[in-house]
């Protein structure tokens, strides 16, 4: 039998054969996400609500702020699909407009939380030692401070306003994110590709941005989708305690807590925003769970 002769210096090109997976990471995730019916339902609902929020002025049948006490507590009818509240304002229109504030309250603090959490988490995880100790001690403080109380204190300190709700919820939330990011960073820090970047002489700041952060994203994404419903519910609680969204704005949380007292004589006032909260929170949860499942193999790589 004739063995191939000197193969060593033969020019050889390895074909990355087309049979190999061609999808990018996100295509792959999206593909497995698409099969998850609950997650897709969640995603669709969220998309719908976002559209509603964007096109609120076109969708709302009435001016949501228009008070006319003569129209107080109209039952749901053809004219007022979801009835009117004690000021005669159209509940449907208020829910439609409320989606703006509620989604903002869900998304903005979660974004801020993520941002702060990422920065502190990566820095703590990457540099370790004293930096880590300080950041983690502060985050311990935040975490051991009862979150609703902390939010309340902050709201009292800063006064009730939308911006301050964002701030309050972010102050409460960042510590959890920082922990997750830090843990992730700690595990990534010892990964060979990070070491390889160090071996090349890449600066720490760039390593953090280029190598560590993108690999935290799947985890962060899951966290993000689960943070949002948390914020929406926190705002409802804050509204219940009187420091949530401010009238005449109509956040769902505010509508629910205001409508609570009419639950017996005019149930429609509170039930429909309540259902809106329920639906969006469930939607985010299902999407988050679906994402987690879809990202699962990547979270553990």
């Amino acid at each position, binding site marked *: 039998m004739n063995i191939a002769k000197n193969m060593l210096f033969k020019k050889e090109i390895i074909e990355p054969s087309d049979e190999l997976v061609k999808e990018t990471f996100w295509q792959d995730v999206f593909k497995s996400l698409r099969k998850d019916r609950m997650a897709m339902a969640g995603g669709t609902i969220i998309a719908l609500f976002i559209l509603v929020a964007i096109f609120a002025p076109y969708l709302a049948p009435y001016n949501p702020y228009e008070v006319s*006490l003569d129209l107080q507590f109209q039952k749901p009818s053809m004219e007022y699909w979801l009835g009117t509240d*004690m*000021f005669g304002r159209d509940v449907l229109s208020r829910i439609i407009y409320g989606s703006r504030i509620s989604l903002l309250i869900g998304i903005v603090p979660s974004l801020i939380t993520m941002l702060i959490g990422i920065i502190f988490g990566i820095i703590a995880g990457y540099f370790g030692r004293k930096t880590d100790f300080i950041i983690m001690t502060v985050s311990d403080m935040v975490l051991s401070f009862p979150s609703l109380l902390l939010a309340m204190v902050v709201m009292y300190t800063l006064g009730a306003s939308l911006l301050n709700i964002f701030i309050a919820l972010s102050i409460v939330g960042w510590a959890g994110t920082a922990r997750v990011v830090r843990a992730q960073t700690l595990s990534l820090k010892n990964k060979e590709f990070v070491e390889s970047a160090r071996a090349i002489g890449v600066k720490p700041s760039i390593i953090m941005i280029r190598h560590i952060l993108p690999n935290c994203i799947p985890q962060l994404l899951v966290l993000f989708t689960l943070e949002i419903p948390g914020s929406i519910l926190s705002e409802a609680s804050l509204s219940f305690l009187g420091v949530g969204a401010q*009238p005449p704005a109509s956040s769902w949380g505010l509508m629910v807590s205001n409508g609570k*007292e009419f639950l017996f004589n005019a149930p429609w006032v509170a039930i429909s925003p309540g259902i809106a909260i329920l639906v969006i929170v469930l939607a985010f949860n299902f999407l988050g769970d679906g994402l987690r499942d879809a990202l699962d193999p990547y979270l553990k790589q």
Partner: protein
Amino acid sequence: GNSASSDKMITTSEISDPGTTDVQKTTSEYTIPLNIYDRLVEAITVSPGKSELVPGLAESWEVSPDGLKYTFHIRKDVKFHNGEILKADDVLYTFDRMLDPATKALNTDFLDMIAGAKDRMDGKANSVSGIKVIDDNTIEITLAKAFAPFLANLATPAGSIYNRKATTEAGEQFGIDPQKTIGTGPFKMKSWALNDTVVLVSNPDYFQGAPKIDGVNIKIVPDAETNRIMFETGKLDIFNLSNSASQIPQFRDNEKWKNSIVSGPIVGLYYYALNEDIKPLDDVRIRKALQMSIDRQTLLDKLYYGEGQLVHGISPPGLLGYNPELPKIEYNPEKAKQLLTEAGYPNGFDMEIVQTTDSPNTLKINEAVQAMLQKVGVRVKITQIDESTYFATRQVGKLPSNQNEWSADYNDPDNFFYTFFSQKNSKVRSYNYNNLEVNAKLEKARTMVDQTERIKLYQEMEKTIAQEDAAWIPLFALNQLFVVQPRVKNFQVAWNGWSSMSYYGLEIVEAK
């Protein structure tokens, strides 16, 4: 068994825990003090919304013609809950304690007109020169200046009389520890689980005879809906609708309950305060315009289901010197706009209304008013701030416009007029209303002895303040509504509202 249906205990509820029953250290939450202590003079409800001063621990008194010296003759047969006999010294002790700086009392305003009170409060004297014990049953109080409402003043819960021995022994625990909180009243404190229940039991030795009920359970139930469900399931005997006006139609239209509603006017009113330091509220035309742009009748009808009547001045119905003839403040948005234009604001202006964060009822009025003012072009921003900030800001005269309520502490116009518009108080209440003439008249009226003249002066001032100067926007006097279980008899709405509810007269008759 704490349930309402058992024995002869009445079960009621409060939204929040009073914290202390020492009236010297609180300026509200008087229900329990009213029932466990007595005062030298008592203000009783004689008919709905009407009150009268009657002898209490003092069986009689004399007032010197200049209105400066009061001599009280104290009953001989009164026993404190600890068995001590009431003596004039206890009265001296009580009043001195209020003024003693060590007490850190908050209610000193009720006694600071007594001669020597200021020195005592400032720590310059060890006793109050104006209070003298003549004998065990006689005490003489001298005022620094004549003060017409002094007697009515003493009839407020703040005038409750303590026992020297028990109170001294109790120290900081007085008013807190049920066993150490000793009064002479028809009920004794039995137990106190903070934020849960206060139990009062009847005092069989009460000098006017033991109450007909065994006692009162006062539940602390913060949530209004929970309150309602408790009442409907028989866990409460009395349900106060003032915290949930929205339930009024529910009960009014309910076959089971509609006959159990006890309603009555109270001497108190709702109003908007306007801060004249904030532009353009310094312009009387603007203030008048605001008065005219609020459809008060609709507010009353829609938010309070018509349970009350409009007020056009300062005195609510039932107050000494109430003037039913006062011209009406009309709802006239057209004229209001015209006034705004005259004042240089044809397109309206921006206005801030503040309120405390956890008062949903105020918020409702504010939201409705916001919409009404919007119609004349006034753009209202409702700011909710926490109570602490609210009062701190108000105290320095910087609080923007706000809606508020006031019910009488004592039945005298002074309690309204002076409280709001005197030079001293106008700032503290953030009106910054400075009509020197009115200020002088207010001070004068306090000291006047001739009641008829005095009332006339008040009615005159009322017109000036509320209508000519439009210093505030009076809204309405509301009825107080309660739903009461059928087994509870003799329930009466207190003349000045819930906070002074006496349980003494109640009876329980179990239906067969």
